[in-house]
């Protein structure tokens, strides 16, 4: 657990970047700091590895004040990922990943095998290991950045707007992969973003900060959407928060209707299209699985030409359909 107690950062010119911030960041979960620019989210993050020193208050990791030791040693125990990755341009991909183990003096063989394993883990082709960062795409560089942060197996990983410089499709992929990775590694991740959707998607907990470095609300995303603490949080969360809260409603208990006659399946039992008069097939629209949210199910219904949203299993096989009535029932309860 990382604990902020009355932490303040004031610059010599008097600017208050962070104002008496107190919060507890639970271990093994993703905590997101979100807010408009000037809210002190990045400052708060960087105070954790002391790349910015707090002015007053206390920050502790598992009860121990981070100022009790040497900052360089502290930093080697905390993974760090930034926007544009910040890879070392003169070192190969595998050497970039091996940075912290090398600083810690691990033996070469172990360092190398850990680095290669991590490259695989973040979804990079091992053929890229001997390339230089300039030879990679933005998304690939960011994966290397994550691998570098994880190389010495730190308990904590700090991520400062890591995905904001890549295009939306790659960003979506990287977000999904971070969630998948986190299911395996269970790190204490502190993630900074200005994008509330990213915060809601990734965070187990979200800290909304307002300009001037004050904490506006600290809550799980579903709670944030359902009960914003004040007008600022409500407007920051956005207008369609009711709709977005559907993300946290699961489809696993949703009643499914049997597959309708006009749904055409292929040989594998996957939905192929809707049969309409004249023998034409209309497209299926979006589908959803039992692990998706009600938001995905609603999307399936809205995009289906027949108003039936198809539920499929993990192999893409059609299980059943939902319609407006089923969703309305689920929303009412």
């Amino acid at each position, binding site marked *: 657990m990382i604990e902020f107690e009355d932490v303040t950062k004031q610059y010599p010119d008097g600017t208050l970047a962070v104002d008496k911030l107190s919060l507890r960041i639970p271990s093994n979960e993703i905590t997101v700091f979100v807010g408009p620019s000037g809210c002190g989210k990045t400052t708060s993050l*960087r105070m954790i*590895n002391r*790349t910015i020193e707090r002015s007053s208050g206390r920050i502790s990791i598992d009860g121990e004040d981070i100022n009790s030791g040497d900052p*360089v*040693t*502290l*930093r*080697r125990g905390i993974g*760090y990922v*930034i*926007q*544009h*990755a*910040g*890879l*070392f*341009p*003169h*070192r*190969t991909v595998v050497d970039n990943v091996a*940075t*912290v183990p090398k*600083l810690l003096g691990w033996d070469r063989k172990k360092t190398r095998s850990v680095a290669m394993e991590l490259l695989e883990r973040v979804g990079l082709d091992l053929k890229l290991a001997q*390339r*230089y960062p*300039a*030879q*990679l*795409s*933005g*998304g*690939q560089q960011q994966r290397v*950045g994550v691998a*570098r*942060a994880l190389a010495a197996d730190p308990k904590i990983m*700090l991520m400062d707007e890591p995905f904001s410089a890549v295009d939306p499709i790659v960003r979506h992929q990287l977000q999904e992969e971070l969630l998948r990775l986190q299911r395996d590694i269970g790190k204490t991740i502190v993630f900074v973003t200005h994008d509330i959707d990213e915060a809601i998607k990734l965070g187990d907990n979200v800290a909304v900060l307002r300009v001037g470095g004050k904490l506006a609300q600290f809550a799980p995303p579903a709670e944030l959407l359902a009960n914003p603490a004040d007008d600022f949080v409500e407007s920051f969360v956005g207008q369609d928060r009711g709709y977005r809260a559907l993300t946290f409603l699961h489809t696993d208990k949703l009643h499914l209707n049997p597959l309708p006659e006009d749904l055409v399946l292929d040989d594998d039992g996957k939905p192929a299209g809707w049969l309409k008069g004249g023998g034409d097939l209309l497209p299926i629209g979006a589908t959803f699985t039992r692990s998706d949210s009600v938001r995905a199910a609603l999307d399936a219904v809205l995009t289906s030409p027949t108003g039936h949203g198809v539920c499929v299993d993990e192999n893409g096989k059609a299980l059943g359909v939902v319609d407006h009535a089923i969703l309305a029932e689920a929303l009412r309860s």
Partner: protein
Amino acid sequence: MTWVGDNLGLIWDQLSEHIYLAILPVVFGLLIALPLGYVATRFSWLANPLIALGGVLYSLPSIALFIVLPVVLGTQVLDPVNIVVALTIYTVALLIRNVIDGLRSVPPDVRQAAIAVGFGPARRLLTIDLPIAVPVIFAGLRVATVANISMVSVGAVIGIGGLGELFTQGFQKDFLTPVVVGVVLSLLLALLADLLIVGLQRVLTPWARVVSPVKAA
């Protein structure tokens, strides 16, 4: 051509003097400019005055420097130290800008990442900042080396000028061969030195030559 055959010993002596008079200042100049440039990036208010001072020093006429230095240093007029010191001053004046620009060419996110993953200041300078600054520093090194090789000859006017002495000899005797030999050899020397530096840079910076990928993917 018989002159060349008869004077191989002299030519060789002048050539080797030329090499050490030109190269030694490059080494000293680099050793002085590196810490100076580093200090200027740590205390950024120093950078502009230092670069300006470098510009002023570089604009001093070399002849004047060769003549004034013995007075300042208390050396003999014919002491090669004068040439080495003068050319070292030019080298520092030229390299200081390149060292500062080179260290500043480290992208801010790279610097920030280096600090955040736990590089101490000394290790960061030696293993991150300096290697990344190599292309910019070496650009200055090439100019300084070639400039030094040409400027050593000016020293011949005060009697120590490597291949330049072949010029004075030739002009005094109204005999062109030594002049041609001197010109050709200093040209070749400059070319060879430049090639060596470029080669060294290629070895040091394999990363600077990589081809960018398709930006998509």
